[in-house]
């Protein structure tokens, strides 16, 4: 049973830079194919960690494991200092509420409006009146950068960028401590992608969120990420700030960041 001191330490704000998510020796097999091999990593409070890598390098699988959506073949995950591998699905529910996920295509519930989508976690997990729940949901919708009018729309009536913002709004509905973003700027036009980067920075600053994002977008890496994890051939090929990775002699990093796109993004950032 947890003691009183546990509950207090759990709920005091984690100190800046404290490790809140830790993965040890993660392995994921799909049939005979090994998608992730011996992954060791950590996520520190208040940072934006970007997971990058080519298509099929296991980025999304890693994110799904860390977000407790997929049980790894072997290895250990610790969230807020608790070993999740030893817990059953039901015992992890309280931990899941402290994490928000934005799925790549939004995964908004199609028969609910945006407002209802964002209200759902609040209605499930709080005893607040419907009026208050809707007000808080509207705050989150505004925080995610959507116009109030968008709240009454159904997901099928939203553009790609709006859908991602609505998904972010649902992800932050319960003020999670960790927010997972799966390809936040993929499929968006350059202006919306920039706006999405701004949103990530804004959320990090205002809500003190810790963010793990899977991305392909070179510009996002330069603008948003505090630290970058580069996956290649199912393993972590390199890790560090984007400057470290670009300067490093690591062959995979060289290939990744010194291609035409990587150079262009770096150059525009240096200006």
């Amino acid at each position, binding site marked *: *049973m947890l003691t009183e001191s546990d509950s207090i330490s759990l709920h005091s704000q984690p100190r800046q830079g404290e490790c809140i998510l830790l993965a040890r020796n993660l392995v994921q097999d799909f049939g005979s194919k090994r998608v992730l091999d011996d992954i060791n990593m950590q996520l520190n409070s208040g940072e934006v960690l970007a997971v990058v890598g080519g298509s099929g390098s296991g980025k999304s699988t890693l994110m799904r494991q860390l977000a407790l959506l997929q049980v790894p073949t072997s290895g250990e995950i610790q969230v807020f200092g608790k070993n999740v591998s030893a817990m059953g699905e039901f015992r992890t529910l309280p931990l899941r509420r402290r994490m928000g996920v934005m799925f790549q295509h939004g995964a908004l519930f199609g028969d609910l409006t945006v407002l209802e989508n964002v209200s759902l976690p609040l209605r499930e997990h709080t005893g607040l009146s419907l009026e208050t729940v809707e007000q808080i949901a509207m705050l989150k919708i505004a925080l995610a950068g959507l116009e109030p009018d968008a709240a009454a729309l159904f997901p099928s009536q939203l553009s790609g960028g709006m859908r991602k913002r609505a998904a972010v709004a649902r992800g932050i509905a319960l*003020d999670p401590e960790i927010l997972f973003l799966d390809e936040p700027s993929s499929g968006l036009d350059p202006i919306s992608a920039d706006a999405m980067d701004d949103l990530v920075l804004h959320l990090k600053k205002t809500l003190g969120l810790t963010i793990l994002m899977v991305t392909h977008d070179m510009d996002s890496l330069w603008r948003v990420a505090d630290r970058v994890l580069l996956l290649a051939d199912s393993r972590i090929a390199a890790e560090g700030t984007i400057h470290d990775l670009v300067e490093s002699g690591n062959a995979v990093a060289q290939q990744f960041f010194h291609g035409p796109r990587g150079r262009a993004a770096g150059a525009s950032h240096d200006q």
Partner: protein
Amino acid sequence: MSSVLPRCRGLLMDSIRAQHGMGNQAGFSIEGSRASCTGNWLAANLHDVEKQLLHAQWSADRVQIDLGQISSLDTAGAWLIQRTINSLEASGMQVSLVGTDERTSQLLALVKARSESTREPPKPYQPHFLESVGRKAASQFQQLFEFLVFIGKLAFVFSQSALRPWRIRWPLVVKELQNAGVNALPIVGLLSFLIGIVIAYQGGVVLRDYGANIYVADIVGLSMVRELAPLITAIIVAGRTGSAYTAQIGTMMVTEEVDALRSIGVAPLEMLVLPKLIALVIALPLLTVFADVLGLLGGMLMSASMLDLNSVTFINRLSEALSLNSYLSGIGKAPVFAAVIAAVGCFQGFRVFGSAESVGRQTTISVVQSIFLVIIIDAVFSIAFSRLGI
């Protein structure tokens, strides 16, 4: 065991409470002109505070709110505080905050800047009752119209293909025959066998009292062959195959595969619908024949065991009771049912719009409509046959 379970649950609730700070509730109190907030102002444990704040009696014109005792705060908590401040200030009171740390003031500023957006959460347009009745009726008429257009197009494609039969995609027809026909044999066979048994039993109970055992062959034969076998088979196929057609085409609509076919220059009707239609029009009469045989077999077995009617007598009586016309009138309905099921299934598939949820909705509509139409058409056939004296 029973004593262990609640204990475990208690432990679990404790740990959930502890992890959510529920053990350390949010608190709120007023003394004179001074209000103070204490504890964890987190979304999960604000329900009591919310009510307290709504019914709070503010006595003075100047209020001081002490936030120094709050141990943790999230946006939901900040919003409750800010909402209270907003309403106090709107009623002309002066509010001052004390004990705010940096994070608290940041969160309050964050929600204050967005207070405007909470004013009236927009609701999707809710039409008046009469309006929704009207809209519903109009959309039903439109759907009927679209269905007729679909039938027309289908007839056109069919007639074109009939002129050039080598252009029909026979491999697809064969595949659909396998799916809709061969694979349906077990379920169709089993159900009609059971129905044969049931009819023989129900008829037998009455006939035995009159010593008219032999006529059970008439009852089973006529009802199975003329009505039940075609109807049961059509209903099973509508549920089994019609729904699959809708789901398949619907999913292709969602993933834009239908548009991809169009862009390649292949008519979706020709590629997706025609093979299904042809296959089902062939398969359903054959399935009906199979259902006839199994149904009669069931009736025969039941007569033998309950009425001591041996099978030779049963079959002899059957050949007198059943005319060729009765048999053909049963089989003859099957192709019509098949065409209706295939057309409705595919039509509803093409009506899928947007999301996965729409696939489910149209599939339900497709099954309901095709069973409905099958029964209506069966009734029309019955009336027509009786007028014609078949």
